[in-house]
Structure formats: C-alpha cells, structure tokens
C-alpha cells in the first residue's frame, strides 16, 4: 500500500501530511519526499502524522536523518501527532526529546511544543 503524501504551505512552514502505514515498504517514499523538499530549499518542515495508523523504527530513522539534515542547513523539523500509538513509539525510543512533538499543525507552525 502506498503512503499518502500531501504538501502545503502554512505560516512560512512546509507541511507534509502523511497517511497510511510507514514501514520498510513505504519509508523510502517518505525519505525521498522529505529530501526533495529540503533540496527545494524548504528547510522548515512540519510532518503531520495524524493519519498514520502505524509507524516502525524505519520511519523513525527517516525522520532522524531529515531532522539532522534540516538542522545542518539552518532549518527545523517538527512532528504533529495526537495518536497515542504513534506517540508511544517516539517515547519508548526516547526520541520525543529529540523532536518537537506537537498536537496540531497550528501549534507546530507557532512553535508551541507540548
């Protein structure tokens, strides 16, 4: 199954809304999309995971790689999710301290971290 990847601009940030399940089958398309956005000079990224029903460690690896590259280029990456099952994956790998996890795209754009 393919991932849904929809891009829009909001408040000076590029928002990528992801839908579907992220694992080793689908993570390459997420990585490709995010790197294409960075290559297009869109360095302030919000990844909206609210419609993601499943995410594994491969997805975390992609997000860590993009966060690192965005920060190297003077940008930032923020994550939106309200889903406990997705949030839990960040928490148990303790990556919730590396990312800004936000409840809404508006919070992410405003920089309101929980």
């Amino acid at each position, binding site marked *: 199954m393919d991932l849904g990847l929809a891009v829009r601009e909001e408040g000076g940030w590029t928002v990528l809304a992801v839908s579907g399940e992220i*694992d080793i089958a689908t993570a390459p398309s997420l990585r490709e999309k995010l790197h294409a956005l960075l290559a297009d000079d869109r360095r302030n990224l919000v990844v909206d995971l609210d419609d993601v029903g499943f995410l594994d460690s491969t997805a975390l*690896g992609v997000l*860590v790689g993009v966060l690192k590259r965005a920060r190297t280029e003077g940008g930032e990456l923020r994550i939106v999710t309200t889903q406990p099952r997705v949030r839990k*994956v960040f928490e*148990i790998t303790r*990556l919730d301290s590396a990312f800004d996890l936000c409840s809404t795209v508006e919070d992410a754009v405003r920089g309101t971290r929980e």
Partner: protein
Amino acid sequence: MGDRIELDVPARPEYLSLIRAIVTMIASTGSKLPDPRIEDLRLAVTEACANAIDAERRKPEAQRMPIVLRCDLESDLVAVEVHDEAGGFDPDALVPHPPVTKPDRLKFERGLGIPLMRELTDHLEFRREGGGTTVRIEISAHLRTA
C-alpha cells in the same frame, strides 16, 4: 497447550502490512490480550519481520527463502517466532546508542528496531536455527508501564 498457527510469507516488504493484519487477527481471536498489548505485538512482529526480510534480501534472489511465523496462543500470552534462513545474527554485537541527550544520538538512523523490541516485549530471544535466525517475541496480557 494452546493453539499454534504457522505461516510462510515471501520475504518481501510489501507483505509486511498483510503480516500485521494477520497477526493482529490471530492474537485477537486466539487470546485475551488487551488492545494496547496487541499494538505492541504488531510493532514487535513488524520489526522482527523487517530484519528477516532485510537479511533475506541480502542473498541472491534465487536463494531467497520465505520467512516463517509461528504463533503460539494462550489466553494470557502470545508468542510469535519469526524465522529466516539468512545466516546468523548476533544481537549482542550491536553497538549501543549514545543517550538521546547527546548530539551524537542523531547519527544513528538505523538499529533502532531491536531496542524498540526489547521495550515492547515481555521476553525477547534470538537463537540460531537451521541456516538462519529465529526471533522469539512474547507478549503477555499484563499492561506494561513505559
């Protein structure tokens, strides 16, 4: 003895979502695991299968074998074994990640799967079997506190 269900699945990433759907249905039909524990199982089995598929994909195509899932079901415990025929694997040889508070932590984009599986499971075991590796995942009905 509880029920056992075995599946052979082609070692291809596109079958992972099918594996998740089947394992979720098997656990909810054959055990009394609460939903959060079925979620833990779903993630741990995906991680184990992804490693097995990756290992099989490193072999020449003609030599690739299906991965084998064995699900043992008790009322309050589900054990899933994931077996590949892709040579051995030593989980103890993994380099531990630096703490997340260190900037170096972001150098690690891979190797997050096994630490995640350790956190999700009640018991996790790797053993050599046949020409490859078997990972045993046990999830009990008891809720864990993260």
